[in-house]
């Protein structure tokens, strides 16, 4: 991805980076992630008692890996609908920040196209798009559509395939598949921390320490999904207050 971009930087920046097909190509490195997590989600979804139709609906309408896994986890603990919706909202609130970061680069496009860019925003497409913006200085609508639609289609196909696969895998826990979710959060956390500058890394590690203590304490008084919400709000606030 990088070498192709740099090779054509001088003569063809505007003629290739504004094209749909270049967006598709730039999505390819992220596809393994979508496929493995998507398959795992399908299997975990069926193990949580969701039908193939429900898994397809979740995937098409929610289109957010962590939110979909949490949906299953909360369903299994018979959480009320209000708690599920509030938790999913908070879990995906990070997209607000990503959206805020990308949106200024697309103000020249129509409102409808901007709604399209935002609707298909994910952690991975955000990562690819900010990298592209750093390399070439400009983002194009057709390129963004190519990136977004490729990711969306592969995510749906992977999740639905996993749902069919899940009907054959009787007990996904035995195969460690339930851990796919935790492993994904661990990897995303490490990726987040590695993008933080060296000067701030100690601050973040301290915050994770506070998080462990606060989560432990809250676990005695509230259900774990509420603990996640409260601890996040508390620790993010500590982060702002102790920021230098």
């Amino acid at each position, binding site marked *: 991805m990088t070498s192709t971009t740099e090779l054509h930087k001088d003569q063809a920046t505007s003629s290739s980076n504004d094209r749909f097909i270049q967006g598709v190509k730039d999505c390819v490195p992220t596809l393994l*992630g979508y496929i*493995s997590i998507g398959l*795992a989600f399908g299997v975990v979804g069926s193990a949580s008692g969701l*039908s*193939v*139709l*429900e898994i397809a*609906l*979740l995937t098409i*309408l*929610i289109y957010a890996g*962590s*939110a979909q896994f*949490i949906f299953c986890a909360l369903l299994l603990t018979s959480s009320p*609908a209000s708690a*599920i*919706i509030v938790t*999913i909202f*908070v879990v*995906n*609130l*990070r*997209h*607000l*920040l990503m*959206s*805020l970061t*990308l949106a200024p680069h697309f*103000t020249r496009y129509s409102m409808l196209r*901007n*709604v399209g*860019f*935002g*609707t298909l925003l994910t952690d991975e497409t955000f990562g690819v798009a900010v990298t592209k913006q750093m390399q070439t200085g400009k983002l194009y609508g057709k390129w963004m559509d190519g990136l977004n639609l490729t990711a969306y289609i592969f995510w749906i196909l992977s999740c639905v395939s996993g749902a069919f696969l899940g009907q054959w895998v009787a007990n996904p826990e035995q*195969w*460690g598949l339930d*851990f796919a979710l*935790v*492993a*994904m*959060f*661990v990897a*995303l*956390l*490490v990726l*987040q921390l590695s993008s*933080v500058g060296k000067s701030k890394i100690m601050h*973040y590690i301290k*915050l994770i320490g506070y*998080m*462990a203590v606060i*989560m432990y304490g809250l676990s005695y008084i509230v259900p*774990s999904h509420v*603990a996640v919400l409260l601890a*996040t709000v508390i*620790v*993010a606030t500590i*982060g*702002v207050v102790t*920021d230098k």
Partner: protein
Amino acid sequence: MTTTAYMVWLIIGCALVTWLPRVIPFIFVRSVTLPDVALKWLSYIPVCILSALVIENLIDTESSKVVTLDWPVFITFVPTLLIALITKSLSITVVAGVIIMAAVRFFM
């Protein structure tokens, strides 16, 4: 291939709350700017929520009155974290984590 009206409405509700944060900035970025302190607070959300979700899975709140570590998950977490730190790869970490979890469950 079935579902219930409750499930469809629940999914639509979740879809709406995941869709709004994604599109609102794209719609309003021209006219509204968030204060710096709000942006700073939001910048801490990814690390906070991800670590909270990891920790939630590491602790066992059900087996006894005292909250303890969920040992099989914790034993899997340590090498998985190392693999994530070394490879910085989402897919490798997930595949390795699943394999280690399966091995731990097999032997414990």
